[in-house]
């Protein structure tokens, strides 16, 4: 039993990896569906595991309410009530009017708004990063600004050269940097996969600990 508890699971990643990768490379029929099922299994496991998040949410905010943590518990009530209400509405009928109303007006709005907030932060980030302290930073700054002026119609109005240089930068200009980064990310990922497969990555499925 202790083998099952502490060792056997370490071979599962190798087994699953082997099935998917053999299916990927070889023309053996029959493996394809198994490999596809494994991927679906992962989706199911993840979806069922979402409940862990719900438990965490209810526990953290439930505690805040229970202990009347100052400045927090009222907000925690909002979280719990929102969650419970919308979840139940969704379970009853996902196409129901109330659920769709919440989806459309609350969820969609918050998603779009939060995502768009990057518009603010990107400027303050650039304000600090785009300083020509040395030639490296100057290149970052100049290429960034030319692309910005290429994307906006006003750039062309200021100088017709911007789109010409900008289009070159967007095409071949940035390509070597992009490629090199893609390459090293790829090579690094393969090494990492090897380390996990051979159990040299730490964590509970590794050799250590």
């Amino acid at each position, binding site marked *: 039993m202790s083998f099952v508890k502490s060792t056997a699971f370490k071979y599962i990643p190798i087994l699953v990896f082997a099935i998917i990768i053999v299916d990927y490379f070889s023309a053996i029929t029959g493996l394809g569906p198994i490999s596809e099922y494994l991927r679906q299994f992962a989706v199911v496991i993840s979806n069922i595991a979402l409940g862990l998040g719900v438990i965490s949410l209810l526990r953290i905010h439930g505690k805040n309410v229970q202990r009347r943590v100052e400045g927090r518990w009222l907000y925690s009530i909002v979280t719990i009530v929102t969650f419970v209400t919308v979840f139940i509405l969704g379970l009853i009928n996902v196409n129901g009017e109330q659920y769709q109303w919440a989806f459309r007006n609350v969820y969609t709005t918050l998603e779009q708004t939060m995502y768009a907030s990057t518009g603010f932060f990107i400027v303050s980030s650039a304000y600090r990063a785009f300083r020509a302290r040395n030639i490296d930073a100057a290149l970052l700054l100049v290429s960034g600004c030319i692309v910005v002026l290429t994307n906006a119609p006003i750039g062309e109005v200021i100088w017709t050269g911007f789109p010409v240089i900008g289009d070159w930068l967007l095409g071949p200009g940035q390509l070597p940097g992009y490629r090199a980064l893609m390459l090293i*990310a790829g090579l*690094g990922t393969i*090494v990492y996969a090897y380390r996990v497969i051979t159990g040299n990555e730490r964590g509970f499925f590794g050799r250590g600990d």
Partner: protein
Amino acid sequence: MIIKDGRIVAFVLLFGSFILYYIFTRMMEQGKAFKIRRLAPLEAMPEAVGRCAEMGKPIYYMPGIGTSLSLISGAYTLAGITILGRLASFAAKAGVRIRLFTVTIDAMPLIQETLKNAYAAEGRTEMYSDDDIELIANQSSLVSRYIGAVQREKPAAACLIGYLAYESVVLAEAGNLIGALQISGTVNLYQIPFLVASTDYTLIMEEVFAAAAAVSGDAGAVGPIAAEDMTKLVSLGIMILGMILAPLGIKFLVELLRM
């Protein structure tokens, strides 16, 4: 053909690399020393933890916004969790609380065990609390939660290491605003400029994986990293050869790589 057309080179690449990694691991076990390069972001961890201890503040950790361990982003999340283990041992020594925010809910058991093990190794099991791991449903709600918490709690340091997307600029700027020391790392190349701009130390691309290896430091982890440079040299060799052949109109290499 046993191997599908168009995947022969990929097959050779994958298993060729694996063999190379194995050889280097063995070489290292037999006493050959490979220097793994200095990774400033990793070395900054004690400083970050020290700052938190001094100011009596927690350190924030965010292993990215991958939605599941089973996706490609899962690899980066996993590396982020390994690095978390390292941070946790520093934090345990200094008695600094780690607050973690994540949307990778299915990684929760792994995160839990990583923290528990790190604390236990320092004899500080009491430091672990489930409440310090905050699981959040999706990317954007995590952003709202994180930047809100940053302002209210004002952590002295923060680590953003894993699969990061648009939120990197928001989280990093929010941390920057309160003057937190920030360590970041991602393999998503679009986010690199923002992380470099807004955080103090950044692990760039494969450095995230190298850092995860440096954490353990044994032959099985470091050997493959040294071998990786060999695969880069091979890629360089092919590209140089190809650059010479192309103007001569010889398409042999290009055709070969398509196999």
